[in-house]
């Protein structure tokens, strides 16, 4: 059906184009038209296709319900007055029969009759919908065709439509964000009926295991999120301690020292780091770095848990090196050569120039890059799940196992869970806090970066 409508639209396109041309007496008269002929074609084609597609869409959305209603109305009374849950089951059965998932001969005759009825109605509905859409396409198309005059501002109207289409696509992205935020917010508020926000934000014990049934002897849940935030910060901090110097120094090397051939090799290699899936980092952390650290700890007399904040943080640090190095590299190369020349002309050496002139000039941008990397580190889950463990210790000792906000969200929601226990809802509250934390970091980072970009324009 869609194909037919599009075909119609393309016919309308040609037709309108020719009509526009013939209106002004052939191709020589094109400059008497307000717009190029193709715009008239486009204009009519859009009018032809869009309303018809809309009709088709609406028909599909609501036609099904109408059909079901009609099918049920035709069934014996006994079936019509079923309680809600049984009616649902019946409907499911019917649906499966219609789809052929259940053989006809295994179900009751009433249902078979209803299924036949359904199929019949479905076919009719499809034909009716198609015909309606077609006639809409033709009628609206013809109407639009008749409005084609030499002074019709077809170009402006097509441009307007294009604008709306673009707006709609960006609207989808924004709406999704808003939708996510709204659902998280809704569930989080729900959660705060069970646990007060104060307890949540400032409590220091986290053990979300709730008694599932009243008779079960389970631990009553404690939802103090401080250990999670502390763990998140600890790991992010370790990651930054690793990645900021390494990223910055490699950026300085790439931007200021490396000859072109070295640069073209090293830069893509560094950026590969950003493309490695985090699961791979995770098992690298858990299977290689973790045991290594533990053995090293043993040899120097430290107790390092095999799942430790340190190993997760170190590996995460490696992961975010490319974020920092590529932004810092951009920022350093954006510093005008004239500033460097100014310093060299005063007798500054290369490293003095970099330290005293280039880095200060690039610093705001670099800080922005670091903040972006930090929000990436805070949101990272996989590495931590695999390398830092799940125990919510409130500790500043990087050799112990800790857990983070994202990890807890994941574990809270994995597996069968009811959507009204605080245990599951806690995930949404955590998500909300995380969302705001990374949002604030991102906004600050983007502000800083943008401000810096304008500085030399």
């Amino acid at each position, binding site marked *: 059906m869609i194909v037919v409508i599009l075909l119609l639209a393309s016919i309308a396109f040609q037709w309108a184009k020719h009509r526009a041309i013939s209106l002004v007496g052939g191709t020589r008269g094109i400059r008497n038209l307000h717009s190029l002929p193709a715009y008239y074609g486009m204009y009519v084609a859009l009018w032809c296709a869009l309303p018809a597609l809309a009709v088709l869409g609406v028909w599909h959305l609501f036609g099904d319900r109408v059909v079901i209603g009609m099918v049920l109305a035709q069934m014996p009374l006994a079936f019509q007055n079923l309680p809600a849950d049984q009616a649902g089951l019946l409907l499911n059965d019917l649906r499966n029969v219609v789809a052929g998932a259940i053989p006809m001969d295994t179900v009751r005759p009433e249902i078979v009759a209803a299924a036949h009825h359904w199929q019949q109605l479905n076919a009719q509905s499809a034909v009716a919908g198609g015909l309606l859409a077609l006639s809409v396409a033709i009628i609206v198309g013809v109407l639009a065709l008749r409005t084609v005059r030499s002074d019709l501002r077809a170009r402006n109207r097509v441009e307007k439509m294009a604008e709306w289409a673009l707006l709609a696509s960006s609207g989808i992205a924004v709406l999704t964000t808003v939708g996510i935020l709204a659902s998280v917010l809704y569930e989080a508020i729900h959660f705060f009926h069970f646990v007060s926000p104060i307890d949540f934000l400032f409590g220091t014990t986290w053990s979300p295991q709730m008694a599932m049934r009243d008779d079960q002897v389970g631990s009553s849940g404690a939802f103090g999120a401080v250990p999670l935030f502390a763990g998140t910060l600890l790991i992010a901090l370790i990651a930054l301690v690793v990645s900021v110097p390494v990223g910055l120094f490699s950026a300085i090397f790439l931007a200021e020292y490396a*000859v072109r051939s070295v640069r073209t090799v090293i830069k893509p290699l560094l950026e590969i780091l950003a493309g490695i899936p985090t699961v791979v980092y995770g098992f690298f952390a858990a299977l290689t770095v973790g045991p290594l650290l533990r053995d090293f700890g043993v040899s120097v007399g430290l107790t390092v848990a095999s799942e430790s904040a340190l190993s997760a943080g170190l590996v995460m640090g490696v992961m975010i090196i490319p974020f920092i190095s590529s932004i810092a590299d951009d920022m350093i190369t954006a510093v*005008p050569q*004239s*500033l*460097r*020349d*100014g*310093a*060299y*002309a*005063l*007798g*500054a*050496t290369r490293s*003095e120039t970099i330290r*005293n*002139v280039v880095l*200060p*000039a690039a610093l705001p941008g670099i800080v922005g890059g670091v903040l972006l990397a930090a929000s990436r580190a805070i949101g990272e889950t996989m590495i931590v799940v695999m390398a830092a463990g799940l125990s919510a210790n409130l500790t500043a000792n990087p050799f112990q196992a800790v857990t983070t906000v994202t990890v807890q969200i994941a574990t809270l929601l994995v597996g069968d869970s009811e959507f009204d226990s605080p245990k599951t809802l806690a995930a949404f509250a955590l998500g909300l806090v995380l969302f705001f934390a990374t949002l604030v970091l991102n906004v600050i980072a983007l502000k800083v970066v943008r401000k810096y970009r304008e*500085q030399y324009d």
Partner: protein
Amino acid sequence: MTIEKHQHVVNISRGLVFNEGDQSLPGEAIETKTVGQVTVDSPVISARHVNVHYGEKQAIKDVSIDVAKNAVIAFIGPSGCGKSTFLRCLNRMNDTIANAKVSGSIRLDGSDIYDRSQDIVQLRARVGMVFQKPNPFPKSIYENVAYGPKIHGLAGNRADLDEIVQLSLRKAGLWEEVKDRLDNPGTGLSGGQQQRLCIARAIAVDPEVILMDEPCSALDPIATAKVEDLIDELRENYAIVIVTHNMQQAARVSQRTAYFHLGDLIEVGPTEQIFTNPRHRLTEDYITGRFG
């Protein structure tokens, strides 16, 4: 960058004059050997047979010239003739360009600046540079001027540094305008003020020579006039080499003028003589506006 020491050492005190009279070589339509007096009595810089190549391309061809103490010499010539290139040879700023190759000899107070033993940091402290576009560091006005003395360790303490900064800003004619806002960023000044700040920054390290590459081309006439006055005052203490496209400016501020053409130094002489009575046809064409 590689440096080829020239075998030939020119006796500077003899005061050579190149190629007067001999104006035609076989096969060459226009004589490009330098006309006029390239030497001076007590040069601070003397360049001999300098060639500069950018890769395969030769940008400076066998240029010899002296820069005198306490005088301004102007380099003029059509765009792309190598004025900036030659200027940058004088404090080895060409070192930062990967494919630039300089040969010949350039002596500063008698010692070769391209010699292996020459410390580039000290060289640039003695030969300062001001660029076409004002390029103050994104630091405070004070820090801009103090930067050079700091890296060269010229000031023992904060009071010395304050004094150097103040003196340099005074010499650059900027002190009265900025004395109340030394902590404001240098980038916040007007274009003309920024350029004088850059001059102050250059003289703060107490150089012997100041190189200026079109220092007024980004400035309005009033700011230009101020900088020109400043150049005239600075002549008392420094040797100044200025590249300019503005013939009136060259006539106003310089005592000697050198005309470059496609990498050749065509003519050198007292500014007045170059502008009133050029001896080479190319020079004449250029200053009368028939070229470039």
